[in-house]
């Protein structure tokens, strides 16, 4: 028997960062990006879910503090709710911050649309020893109330059940009309709506009234079972925000993060390196008799390209683990507060510390994290300089080039120099932008300090593994694809037989010469030659040029591309021999220039696309890309030219 399906529209509304998007995803099965910060939901998201005979159409509204404030998002949300009123509003509240969240509930109540109140993140409230009186809340607002934990499996069923009964018999929700309306209910119902075009004075008066009422409601509903705020948390703040120890502790933490990333990551990295070398040898032996074309594709393209990336997974994993730990423990917000003093001098708000920090892992999530910055100017400035934070994908380049050109005692200082160059340049660039294009005050710093807590392994683990998976997926898709393209471009068009050297001897030199001629004849060789005049002043040649082209696809491809160019994949010790070839071909000065160019110029394809998406402007992304590349070129050329004169 076929039943007719009714459709009910449900709007999800709530304060920023109350776990709304998590619930929305649970309900609709959509993968919407969930961030740990306020302001992640930029556009409205829609999704549906069939429950019994009702199809629920969910709309996830951007996070709202209230409708009176002038932000674009809040106005858009209000427009949506008044122009095409949904059948039900599901108001998601952060249980641990109920008082502030109830302000919005009061405003939603005024719209006269049936409400479902979902007190989310109840687990957090429980750890803070807060107890919420659901019955009382339900009576006060004449609306069903659910307490949920966004991560719990049964949550969506409970919500759907509540929505279902609300949809089926709209009127009969806990109508306690027999009970005498109590004072608070009377006051909730007598609140006057804020009108469009009302004077600032009277709006603020109403805002104050609502806050006062929200405070009284919260007092009536929430019971503190322990001390109001965890005193341990305050004591920890006393240490980490200490006027003398705060900054050294902060610097120490940052040092520790990088130390952990590079030292702990080194062991598993060498295992992976060994694994891929063995694999290349095995595959090489398997196709020893085959035509070299297919063999070189497998070894140089597939194993070399992907292996070169996967090898750095441990480093990336440790860096993201450290970032997740800092974030989940609550330190990140404190770090942003401490960093504000420095960052505001160069024209960036303290909150941009978090995206900048993530930038050392990968620019793409870092650019996404700039959404926390309220001011568009601040956001664009941060986005502009994020690619200068040397990301994890550039580590392979340094790992190859630095040992090739510098004696062992110089390697660590050179690596530090590279990172510092990026940071100093970012600071100068931000300052320059703030003084010219994005003029204006840095938005003053105010940020919620979350309660300190011992990081949950589940959250930290999921976050780290999620990032690692993204990285691996990149290795499997973008980088594999790009390596393949580059390999194709290096292999075709084939050099005609008659142009091959006539003395067809089998000596190693003749083979190398033959390979080189083929390369020059190929598409990538021609492209490399085409850009060579530009690269000459910084000491690089067309071969390095082709690797730069590869680095646009993904920075890691640079290394794989050099491997293909110098055809060293099938020799005994891959990295060592590539290094010795580089040492023979280029001077340490040129090596430095190449490193600098990789650090500063040509942000990768993914970064470019993400900047275009997040800044909502292709022009901005293009401008930034060009500006950084030109800057990189200028710096590399200066270093080369000055260096040559100085060294002579």
């Amino acid at each position, binding site marked *: 028997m076929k039943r007719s399906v009714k459709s009910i529209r449900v709007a999800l509304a709530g304060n920023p960062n109350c776990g709304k998007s998590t619930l929305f995803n649970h309900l609709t099965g959509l993968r919407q990006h969930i961030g740990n910060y306020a302001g992640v939901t930029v556009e409205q998201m829609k999704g549906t879910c069939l429950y019994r005979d009702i199809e629920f159409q969910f709309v996830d509204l951007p996070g709202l503090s209230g409708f009176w*404030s002038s932000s674009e998002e809040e106005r858009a949300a209000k427009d949506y709710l008044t122009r095409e009123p949904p059948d039900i509003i599901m108001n998601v509240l952060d249980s641990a911050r109920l*008082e502030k969240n109830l302000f919005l509930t009061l405003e939603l109540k005024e719209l006269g649309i049936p409400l479902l109140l979902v007190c989310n993140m109840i687990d957090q409230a429980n750890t803070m020893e807060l107890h919420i009186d659901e019955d009382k809340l339900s009576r006060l607002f004449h609306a069903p109330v659910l307490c949920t934990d966004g991560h719990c499996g049964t949550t969506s069923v409970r919500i759907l059940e509540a929505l279902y009964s609300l949809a089926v018999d709209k009127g009969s929700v806990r109508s306690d009309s027999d009970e005498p309306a109590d004072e608070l209910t009377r006051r909730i119902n007598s609140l006057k709506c804020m009108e469009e075009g009302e004077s600032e004075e009277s709006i*603020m008066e109403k805002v104050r009234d609502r806050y*006062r009422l929200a405070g009284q409601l919260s007092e009536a509903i929430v019971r503190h079972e322990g001390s109001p705020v965890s005193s341990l948390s305050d004591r920890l703040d006393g240490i980490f925000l200490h006027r003398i120890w*705060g900054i050294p502790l902060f610097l120490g933490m940052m040092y520790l993060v990088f130390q952990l990333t590079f030292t702990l990551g080194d062991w598993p990295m060498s295992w992976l390196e060994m694994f891929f070398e063995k694999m290349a040898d095995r595959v090489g032996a398997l196709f020893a008799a085959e035509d070299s074309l297919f063999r070189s594709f497998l070894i140089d393209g597939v194993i070399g390209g992907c292996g070169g990336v996967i090898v750095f997974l441990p480093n990336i994993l440790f860096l993201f683990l450290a970032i997740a730990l800092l974030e989940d423990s609550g330190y990140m*917000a404190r770090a942003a507060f401490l960093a504000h003093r420095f960052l505001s001098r160069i024209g960036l708000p303290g909150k941009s510390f978090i995206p900048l920090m993530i930038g050392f892992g990968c620019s793409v999530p870092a650019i996404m994290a700039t959404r926390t910055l309220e001011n568009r100017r601040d956001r664009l400035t941060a986005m502009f300089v994020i690619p200068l934070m040397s990301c994890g994908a550039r580590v392979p380049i340094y790992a190859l080039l630095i040992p090739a050109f510098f004696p062992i005692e110089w390697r660590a200082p050179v690596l530090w120099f590279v990172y510092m160059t990026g940071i100093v340049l970012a600071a100068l660039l931000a300052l320059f932008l703030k003084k010219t294009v994005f003029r204006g005050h840095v938005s003053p710093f105010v940020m*919620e300090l979350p309660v300190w807590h011992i990081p949950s392994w589940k959250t930290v683990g999921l976050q780290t593994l999620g990032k690692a998976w993204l990285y691996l997926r990149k290795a499997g898709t973008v980088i594999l694809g790009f390596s393949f393209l580059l390999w194709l471009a290096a292999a075709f068009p084939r050099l005609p037989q008659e142009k091959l050297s006539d003395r067809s001897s089998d000596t190693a030199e003749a083979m190398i010469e033959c390979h080189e001629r083929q390369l020059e004849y190929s598409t990538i060789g021609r492209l490399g030659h085409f850009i060579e005049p530009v690269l000459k002043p910084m000491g690089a040649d067309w071969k390095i040029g082709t690797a730069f082209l590869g680095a646009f696809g993904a920075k890691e491809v640079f290394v794989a591309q050099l491997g293909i160019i110098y055809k060293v994949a099938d020799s005994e010790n891959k990295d060592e021999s590539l290094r010795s070839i580089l040492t023979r071909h280029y001077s340490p000065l040129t090596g430095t220039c190449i490193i600098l160019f990789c650090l500063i110029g040509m942000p990768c394809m993914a970064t470019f696309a993400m900047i275009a998406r997040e800044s909502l402007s292709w022009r901005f992304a293009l401008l930034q890309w060009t500006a950084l590349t030109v800057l990189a070129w200028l710096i590399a050329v200066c270093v080369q030219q000055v260096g040559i004169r100085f060294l002579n």
Partner: protein
Amino acid sequence: MSLIHAKEGERVTVVDVDESYRRRFARLGVVPGTEINILAQSLHGGCVFLCRGIKWAMEMDMAQRITVEPIS
């Protein structure tokens, strides 16, 4: 007095806020009549306070726009 002059551990009530920042503060829940607990006045150019159960860190430049009076 302004918020930055309140002592650590002191409980104060908001009397007034700077006109140009009114909406900004109101979004945080800081409106005249709000009770604030000062948790830390640090040298790092700001203060940490508790308001409506939420702990905020605010830079000095902003905090000095809030006028408060101590709750006796």
